[in-house]
């Protein structure tokens, strides 16, 4: 057994240790065990009942998934009056996704940030963006001294811009930090979160050196007219309060062959995305012919996100 893998007892203990987490399904089950089960038979309570018994994503059968997706779609229909489609595209054989970002071309316009929010149904109030654009002093690589609240005309003569989002690390500290295995790296390299398994302890958020994880402190809100109906179970479906989320390289798009929304929105062509295993892909061309820079290389995260000059 690998040294970083906790056994079930330990995991249970950690879960009890963070018992305040609002979604502790074990507490719920205890309470429920003592109470009568008839509550679950009423139509209104059927959804939470099923939800609390829902297994980890990796243990779901295709049949389970069909039922869960249908239930979630119906919930959105009820709550927002919007017909959404939840899918679960699988990783593609022979594909490992990577991102490259041209620091010389990015002008810091934040078009990527907003396109991402729109695509991924992230909360508008409180406002949540997966991407954070750092305004950096020219000649400095010190992200600690960057400014994320700049406004007005860009680019300025004194600055360059460095957008930061999830780096989909090969040795992801967030994955190691999670006490309940609610976040993991998929075979195509994308680090995902099972929003139904997440207990909201925020250990992963603290572990990420890129500050790439976002927590739903409040009920996320998206106007019905702004909901993106094309939703992935492991990516942009509507999240509840109390769970962690982050960039997934738009897996509901990219696993279908499309580019991520942030790349499509970028007016400067600073963003390059593709298959790291394909020698002709744009990302591979970047890595092979340009000066590439890895953010926080010393953290040993081995990210699938590269910055380059040129």
């Amino acid at each position: 057994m690998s040294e970083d893998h906790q056994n079930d007892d330990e995991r249970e203990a950690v879960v009890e240790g963070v018992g305040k987490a609002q979604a502790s399904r074990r507490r719920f089950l205890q309470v429920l065990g003592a109470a009568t089960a008839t509550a679950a038979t009423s139509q209104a309570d059927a959804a939470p009942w099923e939800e609390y018994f829902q297994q980890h994503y990796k243990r779901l059968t295709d049949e389970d998934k069909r039922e869960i997706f249908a239930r979630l779609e119906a919930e959105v229909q009820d709550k927002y009056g919007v017909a959404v489609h939840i899918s679960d595209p699988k990783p593609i054989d022979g594909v490992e996704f990577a991102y490259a970002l041209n620091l010389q071309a990015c002008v810091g316009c934040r078009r990527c940030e907003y396109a991402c929010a729109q695509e991924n149904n992230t909360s508008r109030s409180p406002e949540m963006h997966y991407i954070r654009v750092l305004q950096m002093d020219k000649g400095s690589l010190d992200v600690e001294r960057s400014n994320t609240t700049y406004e007005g005309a860009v680019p300025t003569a004194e600055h360059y811009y460095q957008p930061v989002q999830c780096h989909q690390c090969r040795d992801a500290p967030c994955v190691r930090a999670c006490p309940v295995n609610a976040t993991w790296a998929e075979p195509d390299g994308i680090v995902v979160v099972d929003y139904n398994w997440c207990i909201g302890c925020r250990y992963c958020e603290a572990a990420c050196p890129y500050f790439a994880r976002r927590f739903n402190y409040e009920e996320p809100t998206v106007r019905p007219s702004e909901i993106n109906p094309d939703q992935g179970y492991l990516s942009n479906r509507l999240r509840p309060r109390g769970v962690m989320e982050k960039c997934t390289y738009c897996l509901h798009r990219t696993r279908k062959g499309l580019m991520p929304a942030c790349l499509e929105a970028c007016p400067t062509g600073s963003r390059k995305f593709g298959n790291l295993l394909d020698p002709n892909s744009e990302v591979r061309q970047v890595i092979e012919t340009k000066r590439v820079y890895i953010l926080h290389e010393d953290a040993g995260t081995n990210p699938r996100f590269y910055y380059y000059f040129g």
Partner: protein
Amino acid sequence: MCKLGPAVILVFVSAAAPLGCHRAEPRARRTPPPSATVTIVPRTPSIATYSCMQRCHTRLPPNPTQRELVEFHTDKRLAHGTTLTWCTFCHQSDNLDRLRLIDGSLVSFDDGHRVCSQCHAERYRDWTRGIHGVTTGSWRDVAQRRSCTACHNPHDPHRTQFNALPPPSRERGREQEDHHE
């Protein structure tokens, strides 16, 4: 024995760690699917005054003398390096629907990048590899690549400023809220 090895390990791992271990899962096959086919987005449909010949210049033969333009094209400021001082350096004066390469051959506006490549060889090479420039669509099926002049004004290619979208309210109120930094 050798053959059995991986199978035994697999059984062990799946029994002990039903959710998989913390590392990425083993990959079944590593042969990548074929790369995307890249198409160049034609420029002519987005040039408002195209076709130059049909609209004006068949009737109005251009005056090749270098001078200050006061009647037509007054919106065009030519500020591109020190060698490009007059229209006919890139535009073919007797066929204004074509651009002219240094060797005298003519190309369509859709192939404008070939004109640029004559001076900006390295940038052009990066563009052909998809390292520089805008390519959207699919990383696997068909991708659309923009030609140089879709982004750069060839007459005055200096980068202009424009307004950034506002920082999200979470960033604006960061000092007060300070969730994690």
